[in-house]
C-alpha cells in the first residue's frame, strides 16, 4: 500500500489509513493512536522539508508482516541524524523524532543516492 503526499490533507488521510490498517490487524486502541501519531509526525517532517526545498511530494508505504506494522517514507534529500532527546524540551518544536524513537520498536534512516528512506516498525502488543 503506497500513497503520494502533496498536502497537509494528504497527511491527515495517511494518518487515517494507518488507523484503519492497525485496527484491521488488531492493534490495541492505544497502539492505534500511537501509530497515527508517528505517521503524522514523520509525514509532517517530510512535508516541511519538501516545502523548504521546493520538492513536490514524498511517498509513504505501509506493510503488515510478522514483525508488525512497517511504515516507510521516501523523499528527495539527504540523511539526518536520529537524535534521542535527554534534556527537557520546554520549547515549541523538536518533539517529533523523540516521540517516534520512543514509540516505535525500530527506526532507521538510509540514504539512497539523492533520496532518503525513513523506516519505522511497531510490533503488536509490545
Amino acid at each position, binding site marked *: 500500500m503506497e500513497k503520494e503526499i502533496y498536502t497537509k490533507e494528504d497527511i491527515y488521510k495517511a494518518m487515517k489509513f494507518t488507523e484503519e490498517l492497525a485496527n484491521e490487524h488488531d492493534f490495541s486502541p492505544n497502539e492505534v493512536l500511537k501509530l*497515527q501519531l508517528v505517521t503524522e509526525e514523520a509525514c509532517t517532517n517530510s512535508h516541511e522539508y519538501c516545502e523548504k526545498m521546493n520538492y513536490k511530494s514524498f511517498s509513504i508505504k505501509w506493510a503488515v508482516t510478522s514483525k508488525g506494522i512497517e511504515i516507510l517514507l521516501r523523499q528527495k534529500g539527504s540523511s539526518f541524524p536520529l537524535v534521542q532527546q535527554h534534556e527537557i524540551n*520546554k520549547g515549541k518544536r*523538536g518533539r517529533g523524532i523523540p*516521540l517516534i524513537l520512543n*514509540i516505535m520498536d525500530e527506526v532507521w534512516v538510509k540514504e539512497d543516492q539523492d533520496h532518503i528512506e525513513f523506516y519505522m516498525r511497531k510490533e503488536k502488543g509490545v
Partner: protein
Amino acid sequence: MFVIQEGLIDIFQVNEDITIRNVEIFQNKMKTFLTDAKQFLLLDLEHVEYLNSSALGIIAHTAMQSKQLDKKFVVAGIHPSLEEIFIIVKFSSFMRLFPTVEEGMDYLTNDISN
C-alpha cells in the same frame, strides 16, 4: 474549543483531538486564552485522546509563558493514552498535570485560598 469561567479560574475546554487539520486553530485559541485569563488557567483535556507534537509544543509554550506572566497554569483531564505521551516529553517536570478536572480545580482553588 471554548473558554468558561468558574469563579476566578478560566477553563479552556478542548473537545476534539488536535491534528494537523486544526492545530492552527488550537494555537490561536490558546494564545487568546493565556492573554485574556486573569491569573488561574486550567486546560481541560477530558475529551481529548490525541495531540500531535505541535499541540504539545503549544502547551509547553503556554506553560512557560504563564510563568513569565505570573499566572498559574495547569493541565487536567488527561486521558491514559496522553499520559504516556506526556511522560515521554517529560511535561510533569515543568507543569502541573492532573488526571481529572476536579483535581486540577481543587489545586487551583487551594492556591486562591492561600
